[in-house]
């Protein structure tokens, strides 16, 4: 199918056209509200990149989106759609909070490795069940991961209102962790060097996110498992003939996917809010779908898409402040448009472009 098109068109031009259209339609929504889209872009860019604190917030949001995007991408490579990142990250928050509360007061560098393991194990377990049900019982993974999102929410509401909430407190949230146990903010390191990150919650998790990008790249394109993953994703029957067990790979892909998205809990619970509360994921698990589609499931693309969505989130916050008619829901709408044009309609322009290239080639030949 993509034999006729050069790689730069396939991986560069088509995604660019699709995302441009998504933003164009978003601009129409802004016009419908009665604002000037160019004004909106200017305010958002200034809010996201114009000063140190804004940059810090942008990168802090991007951290979540990298984890979520990588998780969706790993599943995509194995031909699976993990729509349950939100629920998996929620359960990961439970693991992180339990470790941090059990070791409350201990230095963060001692707690962090355990918390990371807990985050990954908890959310991998939550992803394992739909994965195994898909592989061995044939239930559809999309439906099951949706169901598991809701079950995770209900379980978390129960735990926070009945079990984890300190006595005599109204708000359904855990105790706040000791200062020593919190993952350090980047501003503590960067601001003294002369770049003011302000009060942004950017923390060490961003380094974990960067490492995760590299590791996922190596996993997918440089290991035997990654090869098996991609083979199953492309053609499960061929994989079977090549001696790869598609069922096993399905389960492994979901475990890896779940483990990755669980790291959102490190950024949010241990790094930013220092306690567990309802909805700490802030929808980041879902943003991963748009990020992975936009980034074409490649870590570099995902990092760039995550950065763009980080800018949207931070710029959107600034926008809501300056133009009260445009609330942060704008970002959710843009998210939908990106998923629509970069995902569901990704092939809309391909036939036209193919024709163009074939005529161009015929003309030069």
């Amino acid at each position: 199918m993509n034999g006729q098109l050069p790689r730069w068109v396939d991986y560069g031009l088509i995604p660019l056209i699709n995302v441009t259209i998504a933003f164009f339609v978003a601009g129409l929504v802004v016009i419908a509200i009665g604002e000037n889209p160019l004004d909106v872009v200017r305010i958002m860019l200034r809010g996201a990149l114009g000063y140190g604190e804004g940059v810090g917030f942008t990168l802090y949001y991007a951290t979540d989106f990298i984890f979520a995007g990588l998780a969706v991408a790993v599943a995509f490579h194995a031909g699976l759609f993990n729509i349950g990142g939100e629920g998996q990250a929620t359960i990961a928050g439970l693991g992180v909070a339990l470790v941090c509360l059990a070791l409350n007061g201990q230095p963060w560098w001692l707690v962090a490795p355990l918390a990371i393991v807990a985050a990954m194990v908890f959310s991998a377990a939550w992803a394992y069940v739909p994965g195994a049900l898909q592989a061995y019982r044939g239930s559809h993974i999309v439906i099951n991961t949706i169901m598991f999102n809701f079950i995770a929410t209900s379980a978390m509401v129960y735990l926070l209102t009945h079990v984890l909430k300190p006595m005599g407190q109204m708000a359904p949230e855990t105790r706040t962790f000791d200062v020593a146990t919190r993952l350090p903010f980047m501003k503590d390191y960067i601001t003294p060097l002369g770049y003011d990150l302000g009060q942004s919650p950017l923390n060490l998790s961003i380094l974990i996110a960067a490492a995760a990008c590299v590791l996922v790249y190596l996993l997918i394109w440089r290991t035997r498992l990654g090869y098996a993953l991609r083979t199953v994703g492309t053609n499960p029957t061929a994989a079977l003939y090549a001696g790869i067990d598609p069922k096993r790979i399905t389960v492994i892909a979901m475990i890896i996917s779940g483990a990755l998205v669980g790291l959102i809990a490190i950024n949010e619970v241990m790094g930013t809010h220092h306690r567990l509360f309802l909805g700490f994921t802030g929808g980041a698990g879902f943003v991963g779908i748009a990020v992975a589609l936009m980034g074409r499931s490649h870590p570099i693309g995902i990092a760039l898409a995550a950065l763009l969505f980080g800018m949207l989130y931070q710029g959107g916050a600034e926008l809501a402040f300056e133009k009260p008619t445009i609330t942060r829901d704008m970002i959710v709408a843009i998210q939908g448009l990106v998923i629509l044009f970069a995902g569901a309609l990704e092939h809309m322009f391909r036939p036209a472009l193919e024709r163009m290239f074939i005529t161009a080639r015929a003309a030069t030949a």
Partner: protein
Amino acid sequence: MELFDQLINVLASTIRLSVPLLFACLAGLYSERSGVVDIGLEGKMLGAAFAAGAVAAVTGSAWAGLGAAIAIGVALSLVHGFASITHRGNQIVSGVAINFLALGVTALLGQAWFNEGGRTPQLPGSARFLDVTLPFADSLRDVPFLGSIYANLISNQSIPTYAAFAAVPLTWYVLYRTRFGLRLRAVGENPHAVDTAGISVARLRYAAVIICGILCGFGGAYLAIAQSAGFLNEMTAGKGFIALAALIFAKWRPVPAMWACLLFGLLDAVALRLQGTVVPGIGEIPVQVFQALPYILTVVLLAGFIGKAIPPKADGIPYSKDR
């Protein structure tokens, strides 16, 4: 007698709570029976609810609200159809896109147009579908048992509620007793055969998603202008997904779909009823158990532990003439 009244109360709220589920579930049934997976029911219903609330508030007419809701439901369905039928895109991705689009745009426009924190203005009774009292309901109310059932369950519901339950036998008839229904079922199982018979696969599937949009429109309108007096942010609250679960539970058949929606409505009604009360011998049952139950049941059913739910064979697979 008091126990009986309580039972009637719970059943009455069961019916009310199951109506949006039933509309969305039947909507999904048409779409999925034709081979188009739809996880965008939630978004379509939300968009329709907003349209109903907004238009009813501006025009003061419930019927105009319903019309707008249907228009938006169909418009979003056509987006889904354009992506998944015309361009053979991933149907799940398209459904996810519609959910986010509706969530974002309704909240955004709600705030920008009405400036009430995302809700549409409170509707007067004249701009809503109010409960209808059927003939003799009041005079028969005092007849033991049957009178109460007639007056409180069968009477005293809104027009969309009757429409929802009327849609069940209608859907059954369309699906199993008409030529269109036969073709619809065929196109979801074996589109190549339908194509070979000289019938357009795309046209059938578009018809199915348009019906789906109309029913989502009814569901949204019910939420915004029958059950409530206006649109609220995120007012579908996962009902589109519960409807999807009910559809699986019903194994993609209309009459079982009604029972599944009533069951999930009952769970919701019982949860509301039991909130904070202590059951003797068990203690306080957490509401969350009832909230999670539809989802847990669906997972168990899908896994084949209590019967097997097998979707239409071509569900989710874009059709292309070349094999």
